[in-house]
C-alpha cells in the first residue's frame, strides 16, 4: 500500500506539514512516511582565489573538499534526524501508530520523483526553510515538484486547522474529471460538505458540473454547486473566504508552457495567494 509522504525540513511549516499529513493519514487509513532530503547543492561553495596549484594540489583539493562535505553532511544528517524525530513524536501524539522516517541524499525533486511509486499523497509546505516571513511567496522547489510528480500533492500554508469544507475548482478538463472520479472513490473528503465551483461567463460547463455532482453524490459526498464570474484566481479565493472553506482541490498546470509564459499559470497564482491547503491533482 502506498504512503502519505510528508516533506519535513527546518522551516516553521514543517510542523504544519506533519499535522496535515496526520490528518490525511487518518482519513485515508494509509501509512505515513516522514521524509527529509539532504540537498548538497544548497551548501555554500568555498573559494580560494590564489589561482595556483602546488605539487599534489589536485589530490589535496579533493581531500579538502570531501572532508568539508563530510563535516557538513554529518551535521545535516544529525539535524535532519532531529527534525524527523520531532515530527514523528508529533505524529504519534496525534495517534499515528508507526510513522516511517526516511532520509535521502540528492535534490528534492529527483528524490520525490524516485519515490513516486510509493506515494499516495505528498504533503509539502508552501515555503521552504530558506524563506522566512514572506507570506505571499512560494518556495522555489514547490512549483518544480508539482510539475514533475504525477501524484496528488497537498501544498499547505503555515498554520493548521482541520478541514471542514472543501472546494473543488472545476474546469471540465480531463485532469479535473479524473480528479472527480478519484475523489469520489477516496475516503479523504467523505462527510465534508463539498463545493463544486466553476468560473466563467454563462453556463458552458453545466453538463459537466452535473456529471461531477452526480458522481460525487453517488459515492455519498455532500455537494453544492456554484458558478462564478470574473478572473479565475480572485473569484475562487473570494468564494473560498466567503463560504469559510478550508481546503481547495484543483487540477494543476493544465496548459502548455508556452501559454503559461504569456498568460501566466492559474495554478502558480492560486498557490501564491493560498491561505488554506491546496490539493493539486495531476
Amino acid at each position, binding site marked *: 500500500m502506498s504512503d502519505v509522504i510528508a516533506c519535513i525540513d527546518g522551516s516553521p511549516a514543517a510542523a504544519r506539514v506533519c499535522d496535515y499529513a496526520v490528518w490525511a493519514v487518518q482519513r485515508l487509513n494509509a501509512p505515513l512516511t516522514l521524509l527529509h532530503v539532504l540537498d548538497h547543492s544548497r551548501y555554500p561553495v568555498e573559494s580560494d582565489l590564489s589561482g595556483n596549484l602546488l605539487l599534489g594540489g589536485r589530490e589535496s583539493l579533493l581531500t579538502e573538499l570531501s572532508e568539508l562535505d563530510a563535516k557538513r553532511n554529518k551535521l545535516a544528517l544529525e539535524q535532519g534526524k532531529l527534525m524527523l524525530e520531532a515530527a514523528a513524536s508529533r505524529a504519534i501524539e496525534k495517534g499515528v501508530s508507526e510513522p516511517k522516517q526516511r532520509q535521502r541524499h540528492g535534490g528534492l525533486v529527483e528524490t520525490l520523483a524516485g519515490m513516486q511509486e510509493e506515494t499516495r499523497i505528498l504533503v509539502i509546505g508552501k515555503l521552504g526553510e530558506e524563506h522566512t516571513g514572506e507570506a505571499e511567496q512560494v518556495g522555489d522547489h514547490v512549483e*518544480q515538484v508539482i510539475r514533475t510528480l504525477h501524484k496528488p500533492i497537498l501544498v499547505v500554508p503555515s498554520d493548521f486547522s482541520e478541514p471542514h469544507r472543501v472546494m473543488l475548482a472545476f474546469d471540465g478538463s480531463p485532469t479535473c474529471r479524473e480528479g472527480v472520479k478519484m475523489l469520489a472513490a477516496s475516503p479523504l473528503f467523505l462527510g465534508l460538505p463539498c463545493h463544486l465551483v466553476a468560473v466563467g461567463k454563462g453556463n458552458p460547463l453545466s453538463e459537466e458540473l452535473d456529471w461531477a455532482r452526480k458522481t460525487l453524490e453517488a459515492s455519498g459526498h455532500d455537494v453544492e454547486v456554484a458558478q462564478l464570474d470574473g478572473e479565475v484566481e480572485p473569484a475562487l479565493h473570494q468564494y473560498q473566504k466567503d463560504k469559510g472553506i478550508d481546503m481547495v482541490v484543483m487540477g494543476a498546470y493544465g496548459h502548455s508552457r508556452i501559454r503559461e509564459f504569456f498568460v501566466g499559470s492559474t495554478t502558480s497564482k492560486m498557490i501564491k495567494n493560498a491561505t488554506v491547503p491546496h490539493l493539486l491533482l495531476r
Partner: protein
Amino acid sequence: MLRSIQQEWFSNIRGDLLAGSVVALALIPEAIAFSIIAGVDPKVGLYASFCIAVVIAFVGGRPGMISAATGAMALVMVTLVKDHGLQYLLAATVLTGALQIIAGFLKLGNLMRFVSRSVVTGFVNALAILIFMAQLPELVGVTWHVYAMVAGGLAIIYLLPLVTTAVPSPLVCIVVLTGIAMYLGLEVPTVGDKGELPDSLPVFLLPDIPLNLETLKIILPYSLALAVVGLLESMMTATIVDDLTDTDSDRTRECKGQGVANIFSGFLGGMAGCAMIGQSVINVKSGGRKRLSTLFAGCFLLVLVVFLGKWVSQIPMAALVAVMVMVSIGTFSWESITNMGKHPASSTVVMLATVTATVATHNLAIGVGIGVVLSALFYANKVGRVFYVRSDLEETNSGHRYYEVVGQVFFTSAEQFIASFDFKEALDKVTIDVHRSHFWDITAIGALDKVIIKFRREGTEVELIGLNEASATLVDKFAVHDKPEAVEKLMGGH
C-alpha cells in the same frame, strides 16, 4: 526546464564570477604559451580559448569544467602547422569538431571505461612533463635576467598565497615581472615578439584552402588524432571535476559539445582545444561550479586581451614560463610517485609506459593506446591465473581417472589447461568435469578438443561432463549483469 537553467547557470553566481576571473587571468598565459608550442600567433590560441570556453559553457555536459586551447592538442598540431600553415590548421580544427560530434552520437564517451586509472595517471603525468619541456626552449640562449625572472615569478606564485589568497598569485607574478622589465628597460623576449595579438573581436572566416581530396588526406590524420586526444583529456577532466564536486556529468553531451566548440573555433580563426585539467581544478578551487564560470572566463579573457593588448604584448616570456611551470607541477599527479611502492607492479608499468610513449611521440593518443593495450594484457594474464585442475583416480588401480577443471579458460590459460593433463598415464577411461569452469573463447574450446583427441589417441575413453554450462560464456551476446540469478548460476560452482 527554466528551473534547471537556473540551477545550471545561476545558482552560484558570486563564486562563478570570481572563479571565472581567476581562470581567465590564468588562461591568457596558457593560451599564449600553447600557441607558441603549436607554432602559430598568440591570437590563434587566444581566440580559440575565448571561443571554446564560451561555446562549451552552453553545449558542454560538465558544468564548471574549463575548456580552451590546450597543450595536449597543440603538441599534436605542430607538424601540420610547420608543413602546411595556419589555414590547414583551421580546416583540421573544423574537421576535428565534426569527428567529435560523430563520436558523441556513437556514444564513444562510454569507451572511457576501458581506460584504467593507471593510464589516466600516465596521461596526466605525460601532459605535465610535455608542458614543462615545452618551456625549455624559452630558457635556451637567454641572458641571466630571464633565469632570475623565472625564479622570482615562481617565488611569487608559491609564496604569495601564504600571505593572501584574495588575489590570484599568477596574476601578481605577471604584473610584477612585466612592471620590472618595463621599468628597467630589460632586453628580454616578450609576448609581443612571438607574433600577433588580437586587436578586435574574432570574425567569421572560411579556412583558405582548396576543397579537395588532397587537402582531406593532409588534415584527416591530424584531425583524427586531435579528436581522440581532445575527447580523452575532456573525459578525464570531467571525471576529475565529478570527483571534486561529487556530481555527475553527461559524457555524450560533452563529446558533442567539444565538437561544436571546435567547429566554432575553427571558423573564428582559433586552434583546436579541449578541456583543461589544471584550469578546471583551479576553477573548482576558486569556487566555480556552474556553467556561468566557464562563460565568464571566456568573455573576460577576450575583454582583457582586446583592451589590454598593448600591455599584454609587453609581458616577458619569463613570466609565462613561471606560470606554465606552475601549471605543469599542479597537473602532475604526485600521488602516483608516492603510490609506486603500494600499487601492483603491473599498474606502475602501465603508467610508466603511457608516460614514456607519450613523451617520446609527443602524441597523447599513442600513449593512451599503448597504456590501454598493456593494461588489457596484464588483466588477461591475471585472470588467466584463476584456474586449476584437480585429478583423482575413481578407485585405486581402476584405470579410470577423474579430472575436474575449475576457473577461467581462455587464450592466456589455454596452454596451461592442456599442460594440466597427464597424457602419459595409461588409462582405460578419463572423466573430464568442466561444469565449474568457463570457456570464454574458441582458443579454449580448441584446447579442450586437443585434450580429448590426445586421450583418444592413447586408447583412452573420454567422458565430458558439464560442457554446456562451461561454454555458456562463449556466446558473444553473453551478458548477465543485472540478472542476479544468471550470475549466481554462472559463478555457482566457485
